[in-house]
């Protein structure tokens, strides 16, 4: 049973932030649940037993100072980093114990977008979106966009339409604005067919208008399309505006978990207060 109670064992008193009762989710309700996640780089413990969960239909925002381990937590979920310990469930499946093709298949339930967007700039928006759906295609159909099956191209077109960029399908990705590129990246994640969408600082490089647009899109993907969305942000105001819940990380531990509407200034100050100040 996962609860969003304050984490025990923190060295600092937790902010008074009530846990919403309706958020007492069981692993079966959640699309993503992480418990006891630990990760060290060399001697440096980056994640010290992190628990959190995201249910279908909600947008959870992760806040925390630079280096608190937010990116590492997301990278462990999608397999870009290897967790030392802990349990990850994606779409009801435990990742531990799975290997090879089964693990790859289970991991496909989570898609990710990045601050640096990571599109192939020379390719068209549509071709970039198609690349999200390559898994399972034979190599002969995936060597170049010209060989992509029509079914994939049409699915990708639907994803582009979902993010409002159907009319830019054939434009080079590099020629789009930052906000448009990030929406193409979201479409690529959608084309993967994942139930869980992770976003690592998706709006940090965008201007305020584009940032609001992308955050509104993520919130809509949660509420209308029923995705479980977790986004790392550095803007508490955007979190208040768009998120359902907010989770705060301090030095690799979760120190805060509350309704976005209940997020107070003192909670935020506690998150960004550095140890040595």
């Amino acid at each position, binding site marked *: 049973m996962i609860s969003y109670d304050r984490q025990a064992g923190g060295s600092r008193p937790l902010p008074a932030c009530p846990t919403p009762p309706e958020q007492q989710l069981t692993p079966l309700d959640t699309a993503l649940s992480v418990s006891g996640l630990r990760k060290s780089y060399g001697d440096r413990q980056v994640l010290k037993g992190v628990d959190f969960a995201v249910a279908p239909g909600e947008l959870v925002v992760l806040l925390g100072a630079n280096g608190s381990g937010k990116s590492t937590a997301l990278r462990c979920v999608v397999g870009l980093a290897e967790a030392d310990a802990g349990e990850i469930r994606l779409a009801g499946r435990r990742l531990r114990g799975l290997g090879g093709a089964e693990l790859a298949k289970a*991991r496909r339930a989570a898609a990710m977008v990045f601050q*640096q*967007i990571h599109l192939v700039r020379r390719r068209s928006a549509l071709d970039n979106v198609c690349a999200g759906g390559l*898994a399972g295609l034979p190599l002969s159909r*995936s060597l170049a966009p010209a060989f992509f099956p029509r079914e994939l191209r049409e699915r990708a077109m639907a994803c582009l339409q979902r993010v409002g960029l159907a009319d830019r399908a054939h434009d080079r990705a590099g020629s789009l604005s930052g906000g448009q590129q990030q929406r193409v990246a979201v479409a690529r994640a959608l084309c993967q067919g994942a139930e869980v969408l992770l976003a690592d600082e998706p709006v940090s490089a965008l201007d305020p208008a584009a940032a609001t647009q992308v955050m509104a899109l993520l919130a809509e993907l949660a509420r209308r399309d029923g995705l479980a969305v977790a986004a790392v942000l550095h803007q508490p105001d955007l979190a208040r505006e768009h998120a359902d819940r907010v989770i705060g990380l301090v030095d690799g531990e979760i120190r805060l978990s509350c309704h976005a509407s209940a997020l107070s200034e003192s909670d935020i100050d506690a998150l960004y207060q550095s140890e040595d100040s």
Partner: protein
Amino acid sequence: MTTTERPRVPVPARDRKPFYLGVVVVAVVLGAAHVGAWRVTEFSPGALVDGWHGMIRFLGEALPPDLDWASVVQPGLEACLTTLAIGLLGTTLSVPAALLLAVLGTRGRNRVVYQVSRSVMSLLRAVPDVVFALIFVTAVGLGPFAGVLALICHNVGVMGKLWSEAMEEVDPGPADALRVAGARESQVVANAVLPAVVPSLVGLLLYRFDVNVRSSLVLGLVGAGGVGFLINQSIQLFAFDEMATYILMVLVLIIAVDLLSAAVRRRLAE
């Protein structure tokens, strides 16, 4: 003057003393190396000054160049085409093997595969194309074919190395994004790595074509056909005026290839 004068602030002393001894040691070692090199190469400006009339005689025989169409210019032009053809085939036919070794020899893959392909490339690079040419001449006889084979072998090593370095420099982000989406390694290479590096790979390919045309001249000197072969022949027959014609042709050929590849590379870089 509207700029405000800032007060001076003394520079705080640094803990670490500059390491003068190290500078002195490096200077002494470098100096000794150059003195040694001077001796080993029998470097002697005096000999050059004393022998100037040898050079004048040589140039006198070489000038004016022999421009007889049937016996010199026409065979020379044909040989230039052969030289160009050796360089072209030697470059193009080395593409598949170079690409494979470059992909396998990019850091971040299986360590054994990485080390093996790096070693193969180093070996091919370490053996000069002239040596490869001498080896292949024993197999397929004198002629341009031996030259092509030699260029392929050497060029696979060099171009594979250049290409794998270009691939290592590429931003790993798009590749990570596709890995998260469940793409296999071959799909990641085809859809994230290659599209990002193809312009620089083509640029390096053109640069190698340029170098290979020049190498095929040298290969001609050891019997692999082309205009280099004619130069060698005319020197052996003391026909220095013929040789001068061929060298002029080579100059034109090399400048043309150089300009062409530079122009294409400039277009690609835009």
